[in-house]
């Protein structure tokens, strides 16, 4: 099919650097359930407004971009309206490098994730590494491991599930904007 595309996993060129950074910070900073719901709510409404054909062209990139825009806008607003707020914002443009704290947090996350990876079954870990580290396509992994493609998908999916669960049990994942006033709080003012 002419329109098929396969994203190379290694650097995920699918996202620009800002999109990648956003996602990593999202994971680093987002923890308490309240804000993540606000963010999701707004992203959801914007996705509903989007033209379907544009959204369907590259839904992944589109959704991430919308989420990042919301985070950036809210970050600016919060800074603008309440200068005294402690801000640890996801504004990739304004703060190109994560703060030292964020670095520590990222390191911690990576540590948990590394643990989670090493605890996967050997076959699952191999599938994850071939895809994410070595950049093999799902079809190539299937061939290398002598598995069906759907089995490879399943390994990746369960690998992700295990790793995400590990992060959450350590209290690190969660999508929310850390220390950023949510629109609701501001509006109540």
């Amino acid at each position, binding site marked *: 099919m*002419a*329109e*098929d595309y*396969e*994203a190379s996993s*290694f650097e*995920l060129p699918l996202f620009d650097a800002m999109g990648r950074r956003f*996602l990593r910070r*999202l*994971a680093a900073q987002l*923890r308490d359930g309240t804000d*993540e*719901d606000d963010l*999701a*709510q707004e992203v*959801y*409404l914007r996705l*509903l*407004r989007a*033209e*379907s*054909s544009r959204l*369907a062209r590259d*839904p*992944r990139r589109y959704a991430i971009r919308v989420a990042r825009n919301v985070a950036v806008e809210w970050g600016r607003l919060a800074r603008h309206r309440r200068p005294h707020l402690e801000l640890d914002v996801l504004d990739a443009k304004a703060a190109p490098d994560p703060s030292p704290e964020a670095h520590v947090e990222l390191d911690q996350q*990576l540590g948990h*994730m*590394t643990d989670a*990876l*090493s*605890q996967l*079954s*050997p*076959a699952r*870990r*191999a599938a994850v*590494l071939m895809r*994410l*580290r070595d950049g093999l396509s799902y079809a190539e992994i299937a061939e290398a491991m002598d598995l069906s493609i*759907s*089995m490879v*998908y399943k390994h*990746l*999916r*369960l690998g*992700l*599930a*295990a*790793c*995400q*669960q*590990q*992060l959450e*049990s350590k*209290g690190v*994942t*969660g*999508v929310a904007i850390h220390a950023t006033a949510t*629109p609701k709080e501001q*509006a109540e003012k």
Partner: protein
Amino acid sequence: MSHRIDHATSAIRMDAQEWVVRLDGPLQASEREEFVQWLRRSPLHVREYLKAEAAWQIMLQAAVRDTADVDALSRQPDASAGKVVDLLAAMAERGGGVQIASRSGTIRPGNGARHGWRGRGRKWAARAATVAAVVLLAAGGRWLMQPVDGQVYATAVGETRRISLQDGSTVELNTDSAVQVRYQRGYRDIVLLRGEAFVDVAKDPRRPFRVMAEGVGARAVGTAFNVRRDNRRLEVTVTEGRVEVEPVETASTNWQRLAEDLHVMLPGAGGDGAPGEVALVSSGQRLSVDLRSKSIDAGAVTHADLARWVGWRHGRLHFDDERLDAIVAELNRYNSRQIRLKSSTLASRRISGNFDPNRPQQLLRFLAMHGDVVVHVNPNGDSEVVPVSTDGKKIRR
């Protein structure tokens, strides 16, 4: 920090993880559309998707640092230390999967190999309504208690849907459309998020019915009318009774728009905003409003060809001496396989006709009958209409 989540959430989480993995591989257009529909199902879907995508990014980082030898790994038997985590994941999967299956009918096969992705996707789509309902219940008070986020109803490309509301009013959604229902004490509000809807309003003089888009509202007490929007315009066509079109609230910044989205609209809003001209649109009339300027011009109300503007409800689109590019744009709304005109003279040709929006081939055949165009179908299913001279040679523009 609790990481216990209810079953509906865990089912959505697993779907989100599955989508993240699938999105990282080759996807066909139909699968991308399927994902869009899934993602648009609820804020919870969006949240879980973002979380899974973030976890995937960290996993990517960790994998890059992992020095394990893949060949060595594949020689190891699968019964090693890692089992515990795997088992947990598997248990979480089974628990959630079974639970959601009994409530929504979405059965998660134990063995992915026997069930293709595609088939499963179709099943999801068919159950969308049920799942959305389950999700709303299970997502707990949070989404329900906020007066702001009412139920959202949406259609995919090519789909129509009729919704009966609690007061007896009905909303018919045309292709690729979404509305949010926000009934409150003083008002029955519908927000047109995208696309087109026909509303038949049950009479209730004490509680006006409003359809709103980006700060422009169409207000009625008991009538039937059609509203359609894109990013630039809102079009109101009235088939019965009378509708007032007015600015609802001027939203000058994203922030205000957000607040407007997240909070209840003030009844009779617009009070301190724009002078607020009101246009009265009566049965058989039509008004188009610029959503950016929001200026309402009562003089712009025109006579409406109802068959043209509301014919979609009966699956027919009537065109009377309209430009071909406008007709094609109209048909393309209903189909993921698009028609493209490869010449400007073709685009400005005027035709009349009566077409089934879900069968764009009708138009293509109609055009081909004239003998001066050929239709190429691309591998992705799109059709290109190319003019040819009478001797059959392609004409370069």
